[in-house]
């Protein structure tokens, strides 16, 4: 059988997300001995980013990647990490936490099943710092800077830092940085290169925002359950192997970008000297806590004990 994978990623992207998707597809064909294959429909040619859960649930595709933060009401539990910005875990750790929660807390899987979807793998994003057009030597330096924000959690973090949050669409952030509409944007090295922001903003501040989640590698529930046991076992194993493969690719990308920053691109990396205690103090900020409380209430209402999850996502 040929399964359909629908993704927003363009085939030509060549980043860790795209390469690891290709790896999954190739490996699937290999491990099933060519009995089953996956055909990928790249670049949102079949469904837009915000349409993918609906398209997956109805069987437009069998596989697909869901940008989880776009759906906080549909998948509140799986969005836990998105309510905890900043948080102390890196990409690999966030992936492992998602695996652990899915294994231990049935509601995580149930919430996807309610939408006709099954998670087969997890793809957290890279750890973020803050990229600026001017040097920012210490956290106090963020005061008064216009920092690009999006979503509901970043405005609170930026305000806590003393900056002023400015909502700019991702595709306009390049121009906004170039022309000084914003001074800074939260981003990681690989993505900064991907969007070419580092052409116009030359100071990367190692402010430890942590990794965020991220993308669910999901399947149409019926397609998953319709697989024979052997194939399903292959998919389950592939999903587990995926995290390591993807995280390695991401590490490679990051070190390549950092080398390029140092050599030809002339991006200065600044360590503002932030300790875990500093982050814990900042996280105690009222606005930031308000966002977290919102999630805690939602999780409690869904019958999930929030404490062990929160413990992983707070700075200690």
């Amino acid at each position, binding site marked *: 059988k040929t399964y*359909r994978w629908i993704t927003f990623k*363009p*085939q*030509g992207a060549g980043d860790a997300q795209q390469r690891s998707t290709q790896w999954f597809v190739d490996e699937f064909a290999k491990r099933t001995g060519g009995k089953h294959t996956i055909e990928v*429909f790249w*670049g949102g*040619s*079949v*469904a*837009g980013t*915000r*349409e993918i859960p*609906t*398209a997956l*649930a*109805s*069987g*437009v595709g069998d596989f697909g990647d869901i940008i989880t933060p776009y759906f906080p009401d549909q998948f509140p539990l799986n969005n836990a990490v998105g309510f905890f910005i900043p948080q102390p875990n890196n990409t690999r750790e966030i992936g492992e936490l998602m695996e652990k929660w899915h294994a231990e807390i049935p509601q995580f899987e149930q919430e996807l099943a309610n939408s006709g979807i099954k998670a087969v793998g997890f793809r957290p994003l890279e750890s973020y710092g803050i990229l600026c057009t001017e040097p920012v030597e210490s956290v106090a330096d963020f005061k008064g800077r216009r920092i690009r924000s999006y979503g509901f959690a970043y405005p609170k973090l930026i305000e806590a830092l003393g900056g002023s949050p400015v909502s*700019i*669409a991702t*595709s*306009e952030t*390049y*121009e*906004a940085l*170039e*022309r*000084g*509409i914003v001074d800074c944007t939260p981003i990681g090295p690989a993505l900064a290169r991907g969007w*070419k922001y580092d*052409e116009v903003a030359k100071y990367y501040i190692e402010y430890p925002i942590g990794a965020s989640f991220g993308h669910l590698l999901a399947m149409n529930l019926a397609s998953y359950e319709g697989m024979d046991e052997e194939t399903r076992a292959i998919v389950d194993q592939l999903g587990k192997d995926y995290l390591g493969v993807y995280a390695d690719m991401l590490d490679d990308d990051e070190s390549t970008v950092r080398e390029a920053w140092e050599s030809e691109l002339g991006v200065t990396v600044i360590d503002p000297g932030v300790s875990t205690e500093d982050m814990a103090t900042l996280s105690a900020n009222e606005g930031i806590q308000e966002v977290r409380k919102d999630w805690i209430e939602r999780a409690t209402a869904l019958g999930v004990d929030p404490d062990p999850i929160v413990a992983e996502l707070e700075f200690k």
Partner: protein
Amino acid sequence: MTNLTIGLIGVCALFASILLGVNVMVALGLVGAVGLTVLVGIVPATSILSTVFFDTTHSFHFSVIPLFLLMGFFAMRAGLGSDLFEAATKWLGGIRGGLAISSTIGAAAFGAASGSSVGTATVFTKIALPEMLARGYAKSLAAASIAIAGTLAVMIPPSALVVVYGILTNSSIGGLLIAGLIPGVVFAILICAATYIAVMRRPALAPRLQTDATLSEKLWSLRLAGPLLLIIVAIIAGLYLGVFTPTEAGGVGAMLTLILALVRLRSFRKLALMRTLLDTIRTSAMIFAIIICALIFSRFLALSGLANTVGGFLTTLDVNRWVVVAMIVAVYLVLGMMMDAPALLAITLPITHPVMMKLGFDPIWFGVFVVLLCEIGAVTPPVGINCFVVQAASDGRVALEDVFRGLVPYVIAGFVMLVLLCAVPELATFLPDRMR
């Protein structure tokens, strides 16, 4: 029946239903949805219908389309176009075909403040067509020169169509917008040259006019172009100084033009605000309906594998890359005959853009190139939206056949422009490269 066959049948069904007079949006949407049903089933097809209308319009980028349209309608109400035309007449009325040439120049200038090909063609049909016909210009020349000049608004920034390209291909919209400036000016010159040559070959098309404007009158007439220039300069300056983003420029441009219109008219009533707003939302609805339905059709094409196959075929071709370019031109010209520009881009770019990128072409250059192809498509029969617009806005002065008949020299000018873009890619890439 293979999926590929289903895809081909879908393409044929699309053209057949368009020719039978089915609304273009209905033809695209229904053939797409039925095709999806055949390929993946009715539940998935319905699910695509359920999300695509909301998802496509729930977009900050696309807000520039109604805002640029609004700007164009305010400019029309303020009489900015007719002022420009009056000034141009003083300067060029004495040349044979001079009125057509001056309306082309006026449209090019207007295009620097309007993002809409349709809007510009309407404005100039209202202003320039009666003037030309009254002075003995042939219907075909007068109407066709306006239909083609309207397309300059799309090439010269700002441009809603270029924004569509940027979104569909994830390219830098700022770079794309500025890239269109030089090609737009060059194309305007080519259009003027085409008019001049056509009139030289058949003098009956346009009489020479007596102009008794003195030099001082000519110079004084330049003041009429001032207000529009002021707005254009303000927008460009605002973009460069980082006051607003390209998307926000739509709102700023509309606001500035509104203020100017109010200053000019000295009356809120004459502005006919509600009518202007209704004109804007009607045209917006038309454009979005086409964009969304084209998206449904293109998803059907994608799932049928036809898009991948054509794309794969184009990429694996072991031929000179210019042969591929020629094939892409042919595809756009054929599809452009039947389709509206945003639809054409939505359907074709997922196939052609990756192919061109693999062949090493510059994404911004290709944006300008494709937009030019769309402009040619906007005037070629049977679906030449600018020709419909000119005919419709002419109050029965010209027939659709008149418009199409006069277009031959301008389509040739379009081809010359295509060749120029290939020979001198810097026409498109020079300005964006300076911006980096």
